[in-house]
Each structure stands twice: as C-alpha cells, then as structure tokens.
C-alpha cells in the first residue's frame, strides 16, 4: 500500500504564496500527472512529496505513514529529474548502484580504497551488481554500463535516470518534467515507454509536466494546477469534456477551445448557443461545430488559415459577432474528405448547442439548461 495523501499543503516563498492548501489523494499504483503552466507550483509540490522542500503547513502521508520531517531517503520514493541529474564522474553502473550502495554498505565499507578490503563487502557488491544488471537489461541499457553519462544520448541518459530510480524498487516514483529535454520524436516514444513501465511495475507514479498532451496521453488521472491551487482532478477524458473551470478548459486540448464572450453576441445568437442566464463566456471545442453557408451559421467570418494535419483539417476563422469590437478568432475542425476551403472564403460556424460549455464571470462552469433538467 503506497498511496499518497496530501492534506492542505501550503508553502510560501516570503510573502508570495506558492501553494495555497493543496489536498489530493493519489491511489496506490496510480499514474497521476500534475499539470499546469510554469510557476503554478507543481514542481514545488513534487519536491515537498519527495522531502526535498518542506511545506509551511499541511501533511504528507505516503503509504499510510506521515512522512513530514522524514528525509528523502527514508520516504521510499525515487525521483527522476528534468536534466536527469546523473553523476557525471561515475559510470552508468556506478550511477545506478549508488542508491543500493548507500543503503547496504556501511560508512566504512563505502570508503575509497580502504572499503574494498573490508570484510563482508564482496557478497553485498555481488548482489548489487546482479540487481543493477537486471534493471539495466529491463531498460535495454545493459551494454552502456561502463560508459559515462557524457557519452550517452539524451534518450539513453533518460533511461539511466529511470534505472537509478527503479533499482531499489521504491513504492513511489516522482518525475519532474523528465521528457522536456528530449526532442519531439523521442518524447513521444518515451511517453509510451514510461506508461508501459508503470503498468509493469505497478508502483505509484507522480508525473509533473507543463505539456497537456503528456498529461492527457499518459495518466490515469490528471490534476490541473494554476497559481498554487488545484483546480480540477480527473481522468483525462473527463477534464476534456467536462472542465469545471474556464482555465482548465483553455489549458486542456489542442488546438485550444474556442471562447466567445457572451457580451459580443446578440440575443438570437445567444439563444442559438443555448446560453443560460449569467453566462459570461461560451466555449466550444474545434470538433463541436460545423462549417456551413455564411447565412446559415450562428457565427460567420472569413477563413484566415487552413491547417491540414492529414486526418483532420483545422480552419482558422475570424468571426465577427454583432457586438464584438474586433475579429474573434475561432478554430473549427473539418473532415479532410469534405469540401476544400481556401484562405479568404467566407463561411458560417454552427456550434452544437449541446456541446457548448458555459462559464460565469468568475470562470466557473455553468451547467446548460438541458443537462440541469436531465
């Protein structure tokens, strides 16, 4: 049992609050991603879980044990860092063996030169060698054990960092943007490898990223953080379809959700988008609208860009609602098999009223009338 329970964890740097009372239950064996823009406090929260930083108030429980005041090494957690943080002077083998050596060898046995002579060290070293080689084989880096980190590619260093974390079988893996130093192609590949690793190990993974695509593709659940607060926690599809806050709706999903200020619309358009009283912003995903003739559309405007991704085409439309000052940029997905569009075409945009998300002036989600009735 190694779930993590955070209760009202708060932290400030001087007068600036970094975390404003975060409470979160992470289930045993879950892959949970902390996602949010940079500076939202997600890395600080991870460091507090690891024990590298101390919270000002609140409690952290790992595996049913309050770990506040315990040192990182006593928390049964492993961490993978953004820049890997491998020891550059040690071989891959020594990097991976270090966590085991620090735990199993006594201080005297770890001494250089003298330690090698101390009795009882041989069998322990044998065991460590065996385990390191086993882990290395699992990660397919067995042939790199004698190299130094400086001689490895980014992807290989990433695996070594994973290996160093895995080698002592911790209950919890903490990962701080581990993919952000990799190139785009490798990043997608490592995403798959880390999720596969999670399935095989069955340990609890806490993964920090600012990339919503990583959060959506890898996690069991995603916790969206903004400005030191936890805005919403849920499964990826839940966050996408049912965001409870405007900031979540805007952060999750690519291309971004279309947001139409209600004040820019006339009465008829608002009704056509099923606006409820009090709604200050209406939002719909690019795939929740159709393109039609300019006269038949709820919104209309000219096309400013055509993004053809093969399976999907995204049209960028500069809509001009009745009370809007300037043009309102919208993105609408169309199927590649249908009509061809060109920049400058004037088209109508027809959002599906059932899939329009509505938010009040504070950014909180308002339920549509139909769903309230149902």
């Amino acid at each position, binding site marked *: 049992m190694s779930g993590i329970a955070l209760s009202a964890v708060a932290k400030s740097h001087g007068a600036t609050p970094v975390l404003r009372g975060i409470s979160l239950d992470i289930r045993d064996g879950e892959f949970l991603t902390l996602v949010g823009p940079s500076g939202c406090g997600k890395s600080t929260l991870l460091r507090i879980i*690891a024990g590298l930083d101390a919270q000002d108030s609140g409690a952290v429980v790992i595996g049913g044990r309050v770990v506040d005041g315990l040192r990182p*090494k006593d928390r049964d*957690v492993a961490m993978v*860092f953004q820049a890997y943080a491998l*020891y550059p*002077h040690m071989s891959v083998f020594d990097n991976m063996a*270090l*966590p085991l050596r*620090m*735990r199993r060898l006594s201080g005297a046995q770890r001494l250089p030169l003298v330690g090698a002579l101390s009795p009882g060290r041989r069998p322990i070293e044998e065991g460590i060698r065996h385990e390191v080689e086993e882990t290395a084989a699992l990660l397919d880096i067995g042939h790199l054990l004698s190299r130094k980190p400086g001689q490895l590619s980014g992807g290989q260093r990433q695996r070594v960092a994973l290996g160093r974390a895995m080698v002592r079988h911790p209950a919890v893996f903490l990962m701080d943007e581990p993919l952000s130093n990799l190139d785009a192609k490798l990043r997608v590949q490592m995403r798959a490898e880390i999720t596969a690793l999670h399935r095989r190990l069955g340990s609890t993974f806490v993964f920090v990223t600012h990339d919503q695509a990583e959060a959506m593709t890898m996690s069991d659940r995603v916790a969206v953080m903004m400005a030191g607060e936890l805005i919403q926690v849920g499964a990826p599809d839940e966050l996408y379809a049912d965001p409870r806050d405007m900031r979540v709706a805007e952060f999750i999903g690519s291309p971004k959700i279309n947001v139409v200020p209600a004040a820019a619309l006339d009465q008829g358009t608002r009704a056509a988008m099923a606006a409820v009283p009090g709604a200050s912003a209406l939002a719909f995903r690019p795939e929740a609208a159709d393109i039609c003739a300019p006269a038949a559309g709820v919104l209309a405007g000219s096309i400013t860009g055509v993004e053809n991704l093969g399976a999907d085409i995204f049209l960028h439309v500069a809509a001009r609602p009745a009370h809007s000052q300037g043009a309102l940029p919208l993105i609408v997905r169309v199927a590649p098999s249908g009509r061809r569009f060109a920049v400058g075409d004037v088209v109508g945009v027809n959002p599906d009223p059932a899939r329009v998300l509505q938010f009040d002036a504070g950014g909180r989600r308002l339920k549509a009338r139909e769903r309230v009735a149902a």
Partner: protein
Amino acid sequence: MTAVAPGRQHRLSHASLVAGLAVAPAVVLLALLLFGPALAVAVFSLTDWQIGASSFRFLGLANYQALFADRIFWTSLVNTVIYVVIVVPGTVGLGLVVALLIEAQPSLRGFYRAAHFLPVMSTMAAMAIVWGTMLHPTIGLVNRMLAEFGIPATNWLRDPRTVLPALAVIGIWQGFGFAMVLFVAGLKSVPQSLYDAAAIDGADRALDRLRVVTLPMLGPVTMFVLILTATRAFEVFDTVRVLTQGGPNFASDVLLYRLYTESFDFLRTGYGAALTVVYLVIVVLLTLTQARVLDRRVHYT
C-alpha cells in the same frame, strides 16, 4: 573543374590571409614578450656574458656543468621542492575548507570572502615584514602566545629546521584566499539537482555529499588551482629575500633566490641564465604533466 579551382584557391588564400592578420597582434606580442626573452635567456646561458659587458664568449654547456656541480644549487632545488610540497596541499586544502564553510553559512558571506581574500591583495614584501615581526624570537606574537601554553620559544627564521615550514605557512596564508575564491565560484556552478539526486539516493550526510557530488564536480577547478598554486609556489622569492636571505646556512635558499643572487649580486648573468632555463623547464614540465594527468580525470565527457 579547372576553371573553378584557381578561383577557389584564390578565395582560400584570401581567407588564410585574413586569419593570419587576425592572429598577428597576438603572435607578435607573444614573440616579443615571451618567446623572444626566453630564447635570449637560453642563448645567454651558453655564454660568459655579464650585465653591462660589451662582449661575451660562447662557453657551450660550461655554465650547466658548473650549475649541476654546485652543491648550493642542489640545496636550493631540494628546498624549493619541500616548500612546494608543503604549500600546495596546504593552500588547496585550506582554500577548499574555507570555501565550503563560507558557502554553508549564508550570513556574512561577502565579509568572510573579502576578509580571506585580503592577503592575496596585499604586497608580499610588506606583509613579510609583518610576519617577520610576528615570528621574532623574543617580542614576536607567535612565541608570546606559545609561551602562554608553556611552549619554549623558537627562533623560527634562524633555525634551519623551522625556517622552511615557517616560510611555507606564510606562503599558504598569502595564497589560500585566491584558491578560496576560485572554489567558491566552482561551488556555485554545481547544479542543485545533483544534491537533490544525492539526497534521494541516500547520500545526504555532509561527507557523503562531499564525496558523491561536491569534490568530483569541483574537479576542473581543483586542477586549475593546483597548477596555479604549484607554479606560484615555485616562484617563491620575496619572503626569502626580505626575511632570511636564504639563511641560515642556505637552509631557506630557493631556486629564484639563487637566480637573483647569482645574476644581480654576483653579476654572473650567464650562470643565472642557465639557472633560469632549468627553472623554466621544471615549471613547464610540471604544468604539462599536471594538465595531462589531471585533465583526463576531471573532465567527464
């Protein structure tokens, strides 16, 4: 092909001309200020020239033969080596320890750094006089303090057993501030994430952090400090000149002091030049070996 080749050649020679012009000032200055004088010294070392003399004769290697047969030369060489062997580890070790202590304690960092750096900026000849007073057998502060603990007075600079160590202590005092500043700069460049990784891996006690992260990451700085300190220790001259004049009975005679007395007191310029050549060879060899050996061990890529 044949039409293109001359044009290309022309462009290449143009490029090398520009490159040549670009490095010319540096080359000229190097030749004028470094290689030229070194060459001149090497030539003088083969002659019987004396400062101010209008003519000289070539003697071949006679100066070197005289040098290697000279007992005092060997004494001064051994003394220099002993001095270096004490000063280098002392300076590097003390510089590192002070740097670690200063960085471990956030308050008054700037003050401690400046305080420890002061000896580096002071004029050694003047400071040597201060040290001379402190080490004075009867009125000196050192002996008076030792007397408080019942330790009998020593004539530090007149006793052949203590004169070299005393000079070495002064050398360490003067040099460790510089090593400290370099180590402080090195410490700042050690990534925090390595200390974090070490904490997670279980290396979180001071000595483990030192062994796993700090010392290896300071490798390149340490190499630089070692070479610098060793070269500066080989140059020891002003304390000897001011405090001991090589005495008692040559017990504190060192290479550069020998060089100075031979060249400027006895005006044996050719002999002094031979001594200079020997000194240069030692320093260059030392630097090269240190660089070769250490370079492989401190750069990890």
